[in-house]
C-alpha cells in the first residue's frame, strides 16, 4: 500500500484480523481507522467480526465424563504414592 492511497472496502475486510491482532503498521492502522469513520458498511463488518469472535468463545470446552476423570485421578494418586 502506498502512503496516499485510501483503502477500499474490499481491501479493508482482508485486514480485519491483522487489525484486531494489533499487527498493522502504524500508517496502515491509521488508514484503516480513517476508512471506518466514513464507512457504515465496514464499521458493521468489523462489529460482526468482533461478535463472531465473542460467540465462538462461548463454545466452552466440554468436561471429561465423571467416569473418565475418576479413573484418571485415581491413576494419578497411585502414581504419586
Amino acid at each position, binding site marked *: 500500500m502506498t502512503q496516499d492511497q485510501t483503502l477500499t472496502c474490499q481491501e479493508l475486510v482482508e485486514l480485519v484480523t491483522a487489525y484486531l491482532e494489533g499487527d498493522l503498521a502504524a500508517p496502515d492502522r491509521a488508514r484503516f481507522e480513517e476508512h471506518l469513520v466514513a464507512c457504515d458498511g465496514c464499521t458493521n463488518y468489523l462489529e460482526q467480526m468482533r461478535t463472531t469472535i465473542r460467540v465462538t468463545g462461548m463454545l*466452552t470446552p466440554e468436561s471429561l465424563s465423571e467416569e473418565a476423570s475418576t479413573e484418571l485421578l485415581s491413576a494419578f494418586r497411585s502414581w504419586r504414592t
Partner: protein
Amino acid sequence: MLVERYSPSMLRIASLYTPSRAVAEDVVQETWLAVLQGLDRFEGRSSLKTWIFRILTNRAKTRGQRERRSIPFSALADRETDSSEQAVDPSRFQGDDDRSPHGWASPPTSWEEVPEDRLLSTETLSKVDEAIAQLPEMQRLVITLRDIEGWSSQEVCNFLDITETNQRVLLHRARSKVRKALEEYLAEEEKAPA
C-alpha cells in the same frame, strides 16, 4: 490441578480427529498416562503445555487414522494458505466501473439490535460449531485454539510450528467463514415470521 485445567481443551482437540467422544476420552486418558510415564524425559525444550498437547495430537491422529502418513502441521499450513481466498464474496462489492469501485454493493447490517439471548442461543452456537467443523484442518485447529481455548498467537505458532503470518492467515480465513455462516443464519431468522 493440571488434569482439570487441560482436559476439557484436550477433549475438544482430540475430538477433531476421533470418530466419537468415547474415543476422544480414551485419547485424553492415554495422553495423561503417557505424560506421567514420560515426565522424566521431559527436557523443557518446549513448554509443558506444548509438550502435553503434542502427545495428545499424535495419539489422536493415530487413533483417528485419518491420515495414513502423518503430514507435519507446517506443511498442512503452507498448503492451506497457498491459494488466495477472499473473506467476503466478491459479488458483494462494486466493480471497477461502478460509482465506488470495490466499495460495498450490499453492505453488512449491524448486529447491535440482535438480542443477546438469540445471539448466544443453543441454536446459534450449534451453527457456529457446525461452521467450524466444516473448516479445513489447520483453520479448524487455529480457530479452536485461539477463539475457544484462548491460546495466544505465540502459543499456537509454537505448538503447530507455523509462522506468525500463516497463523494469522489461517485465523482470518476461519473467522471470516464463521462470520459468513452467522450472517446467513441471522438473516434467515429475520425473514421467518415472528
